[in-house]
């Protein structure tokens, strides 16, 4: 087990590398200054202590990590008590909607990007721009631009991003054992669609019941399609979020390739899906951990899953690797690209009905959690995944544990933030349906995308005219 970096040693490393950097200068005082402030604050009357409910879904093995971060915050801010209110995952949307509509809401609610936009659009949230300005933070200097823009709706900022909204699709994971068994060179990861197709052909094996060893599953839905679309120099929607663009020639070529690959190499979409049925990348029986899957297209959270689910594999870095997302080698405009904020992209919002003192306290915690090295940076570091705070990812300890860290940073830099509106959830479902229809042969990819684009455009037009 290579990675057993304690919090203290991380802070040592981080402290040295971060002292001169923006994040340390802008955020709350660093580790050295913290005890002093804590002592001073203890002298203040304790009745002033404001208690806030921090409603989130960081359950299971992440809950202790969050508790640790909250303890760090309490060490430095004795005037605010943060209650870590982890909620059960099921019913999340109902819970969030009722909480936001409540007279007595939690001071901070974890929401996806599209939900943030939906709530913000209905004036249900407090923008944090004033707070940010007062505390002298320059968010654009601290965060990757794609990340911070994912939390802005119509010019106003509603949260700091955490975790990364990008890093969902910019890189892929491969299993060197599987590649070697198929006679491929495990040290040369694929860079183009064409190489990926060829490698998958060599790896994939089937029997009467379906696939037994798989090269790659290209995935479906809006994100599955979107991640390949950007690898073909395509675009989902125009930058002003007014014109649907995924039915472009690049889009059609992308979906045609996805369908052809899936039919030819995997024997159909049901074959591909069935291969993963009943498992997930957080359970030990997932094909990737059992040397049955060559390429795994997933987000940076996979580092945490790998640590938690298969510690032996994580420790033996000669059995797995990370590459940048393959692109269409036949398209000279195409290059490695990731997609940020098409789905997911979490933030933490303050409901409009929150009383002033609680809102102040909520921001105080949000700022720590979003920007401080002992806040969100530590929370993500403990999961082996990158932070939206660019500087935190320069921490040398990341490189010690993960020989592929530079690939991760490159892929983050390749991320494109997709412009979305509060109606993106509807558009995503429309795209998911038409991609399915192409996979199941109900429509040609071109017809499916044309149909999806027409409906999506209608939804967008209705939004902008409304």
């Amino acid at each position: 087990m290579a990675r057993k970096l304690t919090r203290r040693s991380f802070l040592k490393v981080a402290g040295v590398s971060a002292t001169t950097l923006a994040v340390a200068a802008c955020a709350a005082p660093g580790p050295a200054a913290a005890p002093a402030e804590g002592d001073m604050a203890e002298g203040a009357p304790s009745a002033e202590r404001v208690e806030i409910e921090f409603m989130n879904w960081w359950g299971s093995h992440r809950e202790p990590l969050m508790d640790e971060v909250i303890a760090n915050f309490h060490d430095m801010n004795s005037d605010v008590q943060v209650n870590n209110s982890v909620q059960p995952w099921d019913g999340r949307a109902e819970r969030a909607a009722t909480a936001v509509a409540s007279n007595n809401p939690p001071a901070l609610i974890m929401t996806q990007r599209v939900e943030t936009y939906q709530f913000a659009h209905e004036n249900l949230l407090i923008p944090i721009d004033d707070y940010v300005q007062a505390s002298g933070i320059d968010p654009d200097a601290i965060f990757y631009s794609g990340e911070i823009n994912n939390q802005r709706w119509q010019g106003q900022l509603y949260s700091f991003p955490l975790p990364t909204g990008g890093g969902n699709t910019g890189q892929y994971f491969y299993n060197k054992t599987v590649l070697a068994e198929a006679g491929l060179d495990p040290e040369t990861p694929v860079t183009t669609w064409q190489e990926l197709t060829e490698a998958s052909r060599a790896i994939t094996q089937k029997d009467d019941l379906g696939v037994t060893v798989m090269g790659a599953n290209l995935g479906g839905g809006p994100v599955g399609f979107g991640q390949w679309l950007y690898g073909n120099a395509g675009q989902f929607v125009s930058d002003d979020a007014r014109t649907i663009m995924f039915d472009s020639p690049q889009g059609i070529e992308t979906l045609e390739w996805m369908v052809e690959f899936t039919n030819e190499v995997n024997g159909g979409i049901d074959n591909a899906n069935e291969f993963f049925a009943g498992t997930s990348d957080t359970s030990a029986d997932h094909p990737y951990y059992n040397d049955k899957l060559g390429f795994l297209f997933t987000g940076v959270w996979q580092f945490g899953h790998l640590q938690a689910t298969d510690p032996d594999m994580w420790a033996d870095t000669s059995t797995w690797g990370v590459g940048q997302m393959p692109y269409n080698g036949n398209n000279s405009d195409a290059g490695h690209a990731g997609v940020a904020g098409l789905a997911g992209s979490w933030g933490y919002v303050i409901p409009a009905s929150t009383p002033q003192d609680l809102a102040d306290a909520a921001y105080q915690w949000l700022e720590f959690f979003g920007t401080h090295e002992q806040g969100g940076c530590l929370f993500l570091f403990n999961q082996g995944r990158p932070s939206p705070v660019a500087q935190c990812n320069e921490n040398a300890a990341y490189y010690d544990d993960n020989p592929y860290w530079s690939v991760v940073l490159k892929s983050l830099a390749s991320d494109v933030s997709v412009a979305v509106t509060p109606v993106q959830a509807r558009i995503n479902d429309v795209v998911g349906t038409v991609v399915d229809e192409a996979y199941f042969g109900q429509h040609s990819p071109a017809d499916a995308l044309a149909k999806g684009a027409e409906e999506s455009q209608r939804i967008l037009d209705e939004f902008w005219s409304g």
Partner: protein
Amino acid sequence: MVEGLYARVAKWTFVYPLLLVGSTVMLFPLAWTFSTSLKTAQTVTLREVKLIPDPVQWANYITIFEESPLLLYTQNTMYMVVTSVIGGVVICALAGYAFARIGFPAREVLFYVLLSTMMLPHVVQIIPLFVIFDQLGLVGTFWPLIIPRLLGHNAFYIFLMRQFFRGIPLELSDAARMDGCTELGIWARIIMPNSKPVLAAVGIFSIQFAWNDFLSPLIYLGPKKELWTLALGLNAQKGFEGEITSLHKMMVISVYMIIPMLLVFAFGQKYMIEGVTFSGMKG
């Protein structure tokens, strides 16, 4: 009554084999739940039918109490069940009797209203109901879970009781009426004692629905962990984005939740014991 030979043969060639096959089908998923609860993080999987785990990790049943405050959740769940179920069953039985036997103006219309309350999908009622309880300041208490049940806010139970009460011979209540009983007296002396099977059924259902209910406790008790119920504790085992990191632990809690309900059922079904004779089966 003495059973005929034919009936006995039919039982042993037909009824028992059928029930045994059926029981296997019904028991298989439970057996599977139980065996999964005894697996380890490394051996737990949905992708294999293996009813005897290797190794058998009984310790799961101990460690779960250290990881999750199950006793507190049990206490809360029982509090919710006890405070709402008994009163709720009585209220539903009164209403069911009125719909079955008491003539009152607009009874037919109100009966349709009763049925129609089951027709609006719950998902669109979540927010309006939440707003009601939020304005009353009752979010974060058990009241939103108790009040509707105590007021008999359950058309299913009322309708069910009405159907049964209508089957009780009129002669019985008429006799009581001639003895000077009020409607309440008839209800208490004639209807209730003759309705043990349906009362048992409604009792079983309401205990069990309250026990397993997830969404309402989530919405009303979500912020107050000290009030959480078992269903919330079970679901909290799911991780971010619903990822299942410890299937065996979820199954431990499931088994823990199933056993009391099986005891409730085994106890309640005893009130449905007027077994019909089989001797009529003569080909």
